[in-house]
């Protein structure tokens, strides 16, 4: 017989253990109830998202052509590398593989991935763009080992002309958070949107509508079957009013120069040339990733991104004499035959005002004053008119206000008057200031586009022109402005002699063509005496203007050329206008001189 065992105590303790296990089992069951029954729909959704992968089918953006159908912007196939982070079990390893294949530094890809992470966790992140075909092949070959990588075949925007048409056509950028937050937006993260120029103005028509491919995938991203796909709707092709040949000539002329040129058809308002120098390569930007070149352009002292033809405002200088002359005629304060004596300088309101010609012009009437750009004549005319009347005529001619080109970003410029002075400076207008304004100095500011439009109005006999860059979108100028056609004709005759009778615009003379124009040389800083411009540092040199139009038969072209710190308008700005006229009227001129 064995010693009595302590067995009963053990057995009595057993229910405790049993209760513990049972309770825990019930708790676990409760957890399953919670996850499966209470939150089941939530997880079912997640499971569906796991399973269905949506691939956007990017709509090809519309092509852009010039007025005769020459291709300006097209799309090229591009292979972009996307990384689905949720499929990568080893992010470091994935990046190492990608860095090796792309021959890029690991840190760079890591930075791209990190910056893309915040956007949307479960959307594949754009890691690299424009892969070569051999790189695409390498990623495809490793698709099983690296299911996280996905090659997206898309379209990249190629501006065929690059810098030549950059400002006019604009470029694309990835949509910003602000674009996406706009109510009713149809943009999605990662989409490209036109940021400037034509690409921006007609983005809605160019972009088309993206489609979508819905694919059931397994955990390795391998497609199993396709469901519910929607085709992409290509964007609309656009034909512009631009004349590529003229545009190219403008770009050529501005090599090494800073400035802008605008050429308009004075009747239809079609923009044939719109160029700003220095330019940039828009193809660098029409991508989704940021590149170093972008930062460089932003930092460039010459501001290449600035579209000087519409976004920069300058003093018109002597060109403003056209406005003052028309005001004088319109207000009846001048008799065209009456003369003023120019001795090189004069004293008005106790202050000395100089003529650009030190020796003086002698006796000048209106015609001669315009032709030789006599300052003294216009000082007196300005004094007689007063600032309010000058301002009124400037506005009639479209200065100091937006032209309403279809491209956005236009500046209004400034035509000063008494009210403006009081509001902006808190001071009354001093009559002495009117004297400066009369020759286009002082606070007068205009854009090259405004002056091109003004010359168009003079060219077409007094109709407001409606400049536009999209073919067929504008109307012929039919709205007459409040000016006497006879006065316009008189000023036009004087401007004709500027070019054709040995005036300041002689270097724009073209045999067989009626070129009508006005030069202007704008002092950047006030000179107390007559100084040779070439002795000044670049940033202090005079700006050069030449605004003009040419007529041959029914055809007309108005051109405004501006060269920043270029020196004399007659020497620097006028030759470009001449080149453009020779190209534009080439066929007709060839008929005239066999």
């Amino acid at each position: 017989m064995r010693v009595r065992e302590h067995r009963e105590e053990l057995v009595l303790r057993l229910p405790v253990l049993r209760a513990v296990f049972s309770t825990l089992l019930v708790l676990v069951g409760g957890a399953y109830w919670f996850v499966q029954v209470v939150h089941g729909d939530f997880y079912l959704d997640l499971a569906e998202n796991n399973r269905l992968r949506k691939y956007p089918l990017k709509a090809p953006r519309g092509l852009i052509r010039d007025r005769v159908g020459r291709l300006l912007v097209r799309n090229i196939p591009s292979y972009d590398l996307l990384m689905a982070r949720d499929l990568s079990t080893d992010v470091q390893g994935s990046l190492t593989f990608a860095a090796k294949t792309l021959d890029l530094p690991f840190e760079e890809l890591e930075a791209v991935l990190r910056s893309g992470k915040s956007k949307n966790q479960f959307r594949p992140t754009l890691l690299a763009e424009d892969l070569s075909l051999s790189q695409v092949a390498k990623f495809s070959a490793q698709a099983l080992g690296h299911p996280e990588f996905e090659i997206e075949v898309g379209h990249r925007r190629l501006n065929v002309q690059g810098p030549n048409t950059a400002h006019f056509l604009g470029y694309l950028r990835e949509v910003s958070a602000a674009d996406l937050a706009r109510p009713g937006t149809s943009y999605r993260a990662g989409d490209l949107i036109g940021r400037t120029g034509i690409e921006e103005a007609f983005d809605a028509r160019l972009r088309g509508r993206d489609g979508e491919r819905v694919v059931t995938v397994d955990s390795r991203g391998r497609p199993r079957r396709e469901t519910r796909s929607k085709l992409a709707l290509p964007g609309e092709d656009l034909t512009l009013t631009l004349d590529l040949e003229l545009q190219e000539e403008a770009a050529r002329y501005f090599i090494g120069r800073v400035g802008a040129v605008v050429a308009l058809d004075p009747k239809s308002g079609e923009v044939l040339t719109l160029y700003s120098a220095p330019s940039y390569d828009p193809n660098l930007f029409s991508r989704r990733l940021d590149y170093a070149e972008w930062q460089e352009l932003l930092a460039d002292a010459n501001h290449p991104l600035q579209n000087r033809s519409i976004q920069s405002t300058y003093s018109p200088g002597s060109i403003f004499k056209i406005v003052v002359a028309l005001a004088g005629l319109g207000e009846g304060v001048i008799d065209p035959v009456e003369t003023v004596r120019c001795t090189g300088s004069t004293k008005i309101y106790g202050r000395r005002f100089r003529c650009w010609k030190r020796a003086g012009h002698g006796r000048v009437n209106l015609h001669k004053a315009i032709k030789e750009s006599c300052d003294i004549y216009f000082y007196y005319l300005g004094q007689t008119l007063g600032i309010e009347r000058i301002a009124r005529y400037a506005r009639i001619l479209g200065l100091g206000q937006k032209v309403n080109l279809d491209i956005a970003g236009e500046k209004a410029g400034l035509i000063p008057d008494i009210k403006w002075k009081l509001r902006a400076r808190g001071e009354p207008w001093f009559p002495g200031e009117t004297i400066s304004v009369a020759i286009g100095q002082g606070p007068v500011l205009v854009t090259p586009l405004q002056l091109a439009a003004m010359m168009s109005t003079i060219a077409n006999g007094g109709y407001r022109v409606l400049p536009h860059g999209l073919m067929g979108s504008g109307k012929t100028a039919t709205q007459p402005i409040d000016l006497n056609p006879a006065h316009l004709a008189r000023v036009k005759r004087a401007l004709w002699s500027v070019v054709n009778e040995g005036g300041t615009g002689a270097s724009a003379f073209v045999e067989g063509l009626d070129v009508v124009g006005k030069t202007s040389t704008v002092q950047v800083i006030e000179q107390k005496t007559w100084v040779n411009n070439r002795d000044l540092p670049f940033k202090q040199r005079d700006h050069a203007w030449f605004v003009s139009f040419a007529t041959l038969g029914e055809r007309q072209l108005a051109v405004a050329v501006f060269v920043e710190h270029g020196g004399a308008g007659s020497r620097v700005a006028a030759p470009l206008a001449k080149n453009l006229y020779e190209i534009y009227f080439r066929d007709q001129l060839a008929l005239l001189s066999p």
Partner: protein
Amino acid sequence: MLVVALLLALVGLATIHSASSELATDYSPRQALWLGLGLLVFFAAFLFDYQLLTSFGLTIYGGSLVLLILVLLIGKEAGGAQSWLGVGSVRFQPSEFAKIATALLLARYVAGCNRSVLKVNEILVASLIAAIPMALVSLQPDLGGAAMFVPMLAGVLLIAGIQWRLLVTAFVLVLALGAGVWNFAMFDYQKERIKTFVSPDRDPLGAGYQLRQSKIAVGSGRFLGRGYKQGTQSQLRFLPARHTDFILAVLAEEWGFLGVVTVLVLYFVYILNGAQVAMRARDRRGVLLAVGLLSGFSFHVLYNTAMVVGLLPITGIPLPFLSYGGSFILTNFAVTGLILGVDFRRHVNA
């Protein structure tokens, strides 16, 4: 109890078939083979007198320790742990064998301490019995496998009688040890798992992937499930380890809450039966052997089910009878055989 075990095993077989049918190899035929072997092991364990077995406890225990050391020296690595021992084409995990050996020796030793409440030195010896194989297993390193020695020891000690004072002291000691292990002995991947468990959305694509996919699988099953072989999480392979440790997630996805409850009820019945056996066992050895084995078993069930639903950090603890795995299946049948063997011998005079 055997019926319940077989039911569970069949459910597991079907689920494994579903979980692995998309793979190159269907694991269910192999699992069936293991089940057959398991039955043999069951009968062997059932027929062996547990008195005899526990008497040889020290030898068996020593043998299992030798195997554990061998595995550390010449074992095969799989999934980051060196836990396999191969003899020809047969491979098995000595840690599974060690569990049973430890239960046997614990039962024998603690049964020998014939008093109503254990003395401190007895508790220390018992702890040592569990601690040695535990240390060896954690060296592999297989933390999940090592952890299951703790509930086995705890179950045996609780039933054998332990003073409240000691219980509290032990609890504090475990906490301190845990902090020490966290700081000095844990691998980064293990820390990562625990951190991930605390906040699974911290890194849903890295360490939290398994947890997330498992919860999605379980949740998307909802009440009735998505149907056999219709689970997208498992069929499209979003869920890793789906035929082994996460077999229940597959079942939950395809059979819903109803399926889960069915399985849980089966385990409940198994545990109740096991407890019943322990309560009517003839002697201390019988009681303690059944308790030790049952505690280890219950721990597996509870930990795995809780882990799959996201209540506990992920570690390599499979689900008895359901998960694929040869050694593990054999162990479960051996456990069942031993427990039923204890019951069978309650009327036999020794």
